[in-house]
């Protein structure tokens, strides 16, 4: 990964916070319920969701960064495909030229027969 150390450190910290929440979610939610009822539970859950968003946002940014490192890869791959296809057409043309010449010769032959040459 073309890593930005700061971004990596933040990703690791958020990951650790999420891991800590997940390992203790039962206790945290029970305590929140005892102290503030359903609203407090929802608030804790919302915090957890926000942390997850932050984590996935960083993963997605890294995906975008990686794509940007190879901006022309798709175009280059399409270009290579087209070049190979053109080569195939070029090689096919050789036989096609002789086939066209044969048709012309056949036509000339028929004309000569027609006129009794």
């Amino acid at each position, binding site marked *: 990964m073309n890593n930005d150390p700061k971004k990596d450190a933040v990703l690791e910290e958020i990951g650790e916070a999420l891991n800590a929440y*997940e390992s203790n979610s039962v206790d945290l939610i029970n305590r929140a*319920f005892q102290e503030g009822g359903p609203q407090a539970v929802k608030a804790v859950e919302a915090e957890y969701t926000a942390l*997850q968003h932050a984590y996935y946002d960083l993963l997605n940014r*890294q995906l975008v960064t990686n794509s940007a490192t190879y901006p022309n890869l798709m175009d280059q*791959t399409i270009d290579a495909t087209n070049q*190979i296809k053109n080569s195939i057409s070029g090689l096919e043309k050789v036989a096609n030229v002789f086939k066209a010449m044969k048709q012309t*010769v056949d036509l000339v032959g028929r004309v000569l027969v027609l006129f009794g040459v």
Partner: protein
Amino acid sequence: MSQTIKRSISALLIAGLLILSGCDEGAVRKLGAKIGSRGQDVGTAAAKVIAELDEFEQVDYEQRLRVGILVRPPAMGTEDLPIVDHNKLEQDQITQREKLYKQLAKAYAALQTLSETAFADQSAAAVTELNNSINNIKAVPNIPVGVSSALSGLTGLIVDRKQAKDIRKYSLTLANLIKAHRALWESDRQIWDNYLARIRSAYIDQLNKTEADRFDLQQLRKIVTYPYADSYLINTYKAQEAARLDSRITEIKEHLDAVDEAFSQLEKAHKELTEEKPSYDDIVSSLDRIVTILGELKTNS
């Protein structure tokens, strides 16, 4: 007499040249076709692994929703569900990658067609037919048999050489391309590892702490396949769930590794083919290795 000897020597030289050049170019064509075929396998496998990662998002969502319900205190009631969002990887990026690897497979399909098609035979046959047509015109003198066959032979030779030259040329193009594809694949790897680790933690860490009163032992007995007493069922179920998820994650990681290794072998094969004196054995060995790696991938999934 001396004319006849000269003609015979010329004919022998042409035949020898055709045989000699035919060997080398034939080998290049065979290898080009093999590389084309293996390259398609690699591109298709890469696109498939990306699709697997994408599909895993739904598994993650369902697991988090389930465990989110379980960790809530019973006194909260079951009327409203916890808010659980889809933790999606950016769809544009996923789609872009799937398309990219599918396009790579198309490039290799073209290389296979370029290598497999007997353009020289097609051209030689067209020249022979042209000669026959000329010979059929009574007003025109027949082309001597020797000249006629030399013409079609030489045409075939020229086309053969051009074809081999093109296969080598595009092998070099694809070699550079595959290097970039592999670099992207390796750059993305840490993201996939983090993504998979996150999915595991979000479900298994929470499930492991879920209290015993959330489980129905009678129902659990139907799911847990081990012959343990009721008091062990809950923990055994949790272990079974962790093993199930770990097995799937390991499988996806093996697929990611397999594609990486296949990219590397493909790169090696290309590099060897572009050498002045390529070792055909090394190329074939790299390509056979791809068959083994990706074959294992197919067997495991």
